[in-house]
């Protein structure tokens, strides 16, 4: 996917926060990434190291918090937890699931100096 652009977004949010809150070094970044967000974690980790070079978060540890996927089943009308977009409903076996959660991409918090 576009993990590089995503990490550039992270860098710009971190640098804005650093200016606003007066910190100059970030040692750890925690992201909430939903299962359905389409983000490839391996590619994100690679891009993170590359893009953060020269920023206040250079060398920072990256921790990914996985958010489970949630979907509304059109057949049994229940909200269920799913792993993939193409899963069938664990409740009724229906295939018509509308994803309603788990597509998050958020910066949760930072450990700073």
């Amino acid at each position: 996917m576009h993990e590089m652009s995503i990490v550039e977004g992270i860098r710009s949010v971190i640098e804005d926060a650093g200016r606003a809150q007066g910190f100059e070094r970030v040692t750890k970044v925690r992201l909430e990434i939903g299962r359905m967000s389409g983000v490839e974690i391996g590619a994100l980790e690679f891009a993170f190291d590359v893009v953060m070079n020269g920023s206040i978060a250079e060398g920072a540890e990256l921790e990914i918090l996985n958010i489970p996927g949630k979907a509304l089943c059109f057949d049994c009308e229940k909200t269920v937890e799913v792993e993939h977009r193409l899963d069938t409903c664990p409740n009724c076996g229906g295939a018509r699931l509308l994803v309603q959660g788990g597509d998050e991409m958020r910066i949760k918090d930072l450990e700073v100096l």
Partner: protein
Amino acid sequence: MCTVCGCGGHSVEDQFKAHLEKTGQAMAAPKAPFAVLATAAGAAASHSHSHDHGTIHAHGAECTHDIHLGHGPAGTEVPGMTQARLVEIETDILSKNNNYAARNRENLAKKGVFATNLVSSPGSGKTTLLVKTIEMLGGAPLAVIEGDQQTTNDADRIRATGAPAIQVNTGKGCHLDGAMIEQALARMPLPDGALLFIENVGNLVCPAAFDLGEDAKVAILSVTEGEDKPLKYPDMFAAAGLALINKVDLAPHCDVDLDLYEANIRRVNPAIEVLRVSARTGEGMQAWIEWLRAGLARKAS
């Protein structure tokens, strides 16, 4: 103040300094709060201890050993993170893009413009579909933003119809973003009540995640691509409000099952609308034109 339980005075260092003064010990040269604590732990073993969560710290006389996780600077406790150095961000990674998109959406709403973001793999026939659409709309006010990595070929094809078009070359970029659309809109005359078509970079993956401020993403899938494309690239079809199955005139030559195409699209997104069209022969195109007019009417009201 203790950064873990919130007890005591203003800082760990101040508190411990007070403790040392009280017990008649001089302050060791402090390098950092934790260096002080490490020294202190040795100097006054009876007053320091390790908490369950592994943070070693010293206490003043008034500490009751109660646990108050919400009193630290961060107002919360997170395993493995030190409160004093925890900065809550809670921001969407794509928040910058989303801000641009929201601004675009607001500006377009003021003008009653109905904007579609056309997304597909390269070669599905987006530009041909647009050229035919412009012809069928017969002079209705509209504008086109064309996204590609290189060349102005697509914008040239649109301009040949007489419609205004701006080409955005993304260089290495794999998708258009909200800022590019804002720039393009600033350079292009867009009358009130117009249709805006944004032809995204041909890519079934990345454009799904980037909101441009459009009213709907329209995913275009041509019959030569294979029925399983929606299953292989579900994000795009999940993000779209309408799917156009294009080049249906080729279906008899391609051994394809159009019902299976449609079923796979709905499998990924049960709420999506699906239309079967051929931009070349015009088959099914009237339904697409009606869909656009209905969208425009909703924006005007």
